[in-house]
């Protein structure tokens, strides 16, 4: 039966943990709070160690909290992270996304910095500042960084944050045995999509959307054990989406992946969503990493990386690249479908569309068509935001039964 306007706006007949108010995906005020309360407080992946293998190599990174960063490997081979902002007149220090710089020199007035963040030169320092200001006053703002969990470089702009290990907790336990060896990024691309960042994370948190993928419908969903895969929630909002083995020969043009991944069962698949917007996805022969950089309530930049083993032979690397592209490349069969899905959500949830609720009410004993992963995520979101995801503005009176 179709609904009237009043019925459309009625509170869903679920416990309040099983739906969210659509405005959490669209409101500017909530978006700004997310940047401050979540992204500027949590650890986030900036890049991979293989992107800056040599002393003085750097990468720039648009931190999801809003601040542009530089990730640089020093002469001592230690990786550090700084604001990509000149302390003089606020200019961008490094413009290129990557490079090698013994000195980080601002193009504006040639102030120069070393890879430990010390200011090494102020043009005509004494003439302009006499004894009132000097290089020691002009260091770069350093932010915390750690390397780990597959060689990724993590940053946290909160000086008082907990250690990365505490933030991750036990969430990576299922994947840790497979990512201890040196890895290397072979694929990087970005997608900017008119949708909210959480909607992409939602998609990565359940496999109910396998109905969108022809390939997954004729392979995974037909296999014994598919519906046994469990979602497991961990502290700080992280979720393991249960592992399985894929039978690739069920899809024309695909074949059993020949090279696999050390220690992983043939056709194995482990997916871990880390709060608030990162996903490790180890599938058969490739590790994919998604990191989301929210740009506005209805715009997100997603960075996609594909990784293989640093020890790969050319033939092994070629096979991993082929496997990656078939499913996850910009022309791959699944990635486009997933992005089309969240693009559609973004289109339907723009302010003014009268989208009201997003249901997360499926309960299937915490298996992968259960929406428990999203519920786990929004419990953490609510805790950090100090707002209820089902009622972000405290407008509703929820019955005790709900």
């Amino acid at each position: 039966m179709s609904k009237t306007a009043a019925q459309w706006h009625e509170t869903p007949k679920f416990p309040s943990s099983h739906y969210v108010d659509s405005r959490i995906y669209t409101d500017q005020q909530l978006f700004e709070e997310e940047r401050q309360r979540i992204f500027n407080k949590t650890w986030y992946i900036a890049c991979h160690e293989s992107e800056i293998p040599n002393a003085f190599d750097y990468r720039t990174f648009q931190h999801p909290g809003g601040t542009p960063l530089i990730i640089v490997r020093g002469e001592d081979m230690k990786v550090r992270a700084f604001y990509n902002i000149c302390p003089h007149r606020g200019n961008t220090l490094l413009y290129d996304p990557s490079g090698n710089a013994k000195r980080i020199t601002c193009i504006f007035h040639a102030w120069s910095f070393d890879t430990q963040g010390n200011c090494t030169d102020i043009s005509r320092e004494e003439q302009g500042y006499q004894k009132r200001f000097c290089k020691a006053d002009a260091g770069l703002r350093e932010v915390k960084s750690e390397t780990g969990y597959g060689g990724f470089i993590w940053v946290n702009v909160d000086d008082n944050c907990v250690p990365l290990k505490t933030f991750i907790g036990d969430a990576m336990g299922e994947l840790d045995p497979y990512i201890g060896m040196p890895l290397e990024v072979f694929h990087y691309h970005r997608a900017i999509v008119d949708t909210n960042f959480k909607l992409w994370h939602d998609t990565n948190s359940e496999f109910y959307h396998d109905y969108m993928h022809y390939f997954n419908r004729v392979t995974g969903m037909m296999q014994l054990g598919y519906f046994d895969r469990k979602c497991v929630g961990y502290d700080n909002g992280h979720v393991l989406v249960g592992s399985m083995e894929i039978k690739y020969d069920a899809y024309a043009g695909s074949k059993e992946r020949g090279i696999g991944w050390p220690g992983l069962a043939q056709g194995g698949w482990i997916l871990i969503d880390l709060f608030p917007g990162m996903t490790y996805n180890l599938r058969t022969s490739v590790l994919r990493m998604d990191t989301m950089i929210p740009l506005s309530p209805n715009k997100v930049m997603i960075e996609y990386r594909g990784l293989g083993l640093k020890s790969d032979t050319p033939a092994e690397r070629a096979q991993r690249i082929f496997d990656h592209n078939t499913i996850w490349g910009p022309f791959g069969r699944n990635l486009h479908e997933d992005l089309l899905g969240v693009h559609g959500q973004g289109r339907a949830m723009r302010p003014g569309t009268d989208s009201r609720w997003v249901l997360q009410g499926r309960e299937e004993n915490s298996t992968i068509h259960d929406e428990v992963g999203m519920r786990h995520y929004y419990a953490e979101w609510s805790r950090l935001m100090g707002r209820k995801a089902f009622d972000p503005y405290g407008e509703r009176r929820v019955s005790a039964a709900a």
Partner: protein
Amino acid sequence: MDRTTIQDMVYQTCLLLDDKNFDAFLDLCDEGFRYSITTHSPEIRKDMIWLDHDKKGMQNLFTQLPRHNSDHSPITRHAIVYKVDVDEGRKEADVVSALQVYKTDLDGGATALFAVGKYVDTIRFEGGKPKLAKRVVKLDTRMLGIGYHIPF
């Protein structure tokens, strides 16, 4: 192996792919045909391959297209042949064409530039007829939004 024949071949591939006449496109391709899409990432400082198939792989990709959920906005390929190097000994021509790909929204019909790059083709002459032996789509554009299922 005159330049006009070679140019016509490149333009014909564009028209056929724009029309989604994939069988006719593959008829223009040599049995040993290889198709790839490549680009360079300044972010990770690596050349990347985004798609790589032989003729059978392309046939399979085209066959599967109707089974996927896709953006149905059509694309238009605009190529201009810049350079033709004929090797009479090999009976092949190396051809470089500038490529622009436009996407026209299905809803409303707005057209926007989707990608730019180059076709780097090898055209083989067998029995006086040209066949596309190899196509490398070298993309300058790396931001393709939600992506696309149909190769350029």
